[in-house]
């Protein structure tokens, strides 16, 4: 039963991942990638990491839908209808060769490497194990991740915005309410 589940999820993950670069409609592309992630999340759960698996599912749904919004906004012909669905790829052949080589290399490594045996028993609760680790020995990792996330958020907003505070509040920053195209919900 578990083996069958593995095969189903594995094939689903790889096949829908492949479909990402074969489908024309941007909505279908994103949903295909989402299916690949959902299958991967299922596999992570299968490996005993329930928390991380469910988090992968949760995060990827949100991420992919936001991705779909941007994909459709910026892509030509997002619906991929008719003959207008032009090819938007380049050096297909060399890309295929390189990635095939990468697969062979990685696959050979996976099959030929002398993997050690399982060291130590599984923890009583892997979620607690993760929590204790990132709040303990791996605290530095978490702090750095937090800073990176913060920097990414600030950087992304700065890059994406076309209106600065002088546009919103006027040259002397005194204009109230700010000149926003739509009013927000807290009385500004």
């Amino acid at each position, binding site marked *: 039963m*578990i*083996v069958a589940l593995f095969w189903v999820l594995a094939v689903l993950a790889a096949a829908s991942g492949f479909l990402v670069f074969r489908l024309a*409609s941007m*909505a*279908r592309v994103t*949903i295909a990638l*989402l299916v690949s992630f959902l299958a991967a999340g299922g596999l992570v*759960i299968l490996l*005993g990491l*329930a*928390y991380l698996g*469910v*988090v992968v*599912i*949760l995060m990827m*749904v*949100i991420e*992919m*839908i*936001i991705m*779909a*919004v941007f994909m459709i906004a910026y892509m030509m012909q997002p*619906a991929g*209808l008719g003959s207008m669905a032009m090819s938007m790829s380049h050096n297909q052949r060399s890309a295929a060769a390189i990635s095939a080589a990468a697969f062979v290399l990685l696959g050979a490594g996976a099959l030929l490497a002398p993997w050690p045996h*399982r060291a130590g*028993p*599984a923890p*009583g*609760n*892997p*979620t*607690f194990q993760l929590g*204790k680790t990132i709040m303990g020995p791996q605290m530095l990792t978490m702090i750095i991740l937090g800073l990176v996330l913060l920097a990414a958020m600030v950087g992304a907003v700065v890059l994406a915005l076309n209106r600065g505070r002088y546009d919103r509040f006027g040259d002397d920053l005194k204009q109230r309410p700010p000149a926003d195209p*739509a*009013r*927000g*919900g*807290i009385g*500004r």
Partner: protein
Amino acid sequence: MNWPRQEWERLMVANAPPWAVLLVPVILAGFAFAAAAADGILTARAAGGRLTGAVAAAPLAEVARLLTGQRRVTPAEDRVLWRSGLIAVPVAAALAAVVIPFGSVTVSRMSVGVVWFNAMEVLTWAAVWVAGWGANGTLSLVGGYRFVAQGLAYQLPLMLALICAAAGAQSLNVAQVVTAQAHVWFAVWMPAAFAVYLAAVYAFSFLGPFSYPAGRDLAGGVMAELSGPDRLMLQAGRWLLLTAGAGMAVPLFLGGGAGPLLPAWVWSAVKTLAVLAVLVWARRRLPTIRADRYAELAWVVLIPLTIVQALVVSLVVLTRGGVQL
């Protein structure tokens, strides 16, 4: 195959037989029917109509009507995505309900039930957006996008509200969240989290004040192009989501099946019905809250509010004897 047994137990352990999984959608649908019937009665009363047995049975008649209805076909629709999105909504509701304990019986007592519930509810993001997209209609598409906008507003406060309950119990396991409320319900000392959670229940089932994605101004939004069985899927999905949300409020904030005299499952049912009654009663009493207004409120007021709530919960847990691992 060296699968350590205890890992699977943590994941799948149920104190119900495996076939009970099949009961989850049935029980959920039963509660949803009750809610929809109550809603119909309230609608009829507000309009000044007569209250008859037919009004109460209207949800059943509606199912019959939609089952015989013809499916709508629109030009250049994306049928595969459209239909799968529609089916995904009730499926997500049923999957989310798997971790809800009914009395002392749970179909899945997985160790991460709270996160599971959240993840299954988030599936509606993809499902509703795709349902809006697939129909290839302006109003339907705008409705689908509205759900994403609404999701960006409600999701983070909801997550933080769930974190409050989990932190209070020091566990992501729903059964342990219930156990942790043996003395005081979480609703009592986490009122902000409870209120945010209830608002989010409306939001993810896009009913009541959060029916923005299916608003009247959009002639039904994501529902605008749906007829027959397709419409049944999404309409049922909304009510099932509302019911699942109400059902989950009971173990998270209202002490689960705990209560005097009556058996636990009766208490679970009574509390679920009470939450549903409040949700159904209040749903017509507020205007639609548009995402362009709610997003700012959620990010500027509700997220800090729930963070403070989580902080308070953590401090209480620490002072009450610290973390037991």
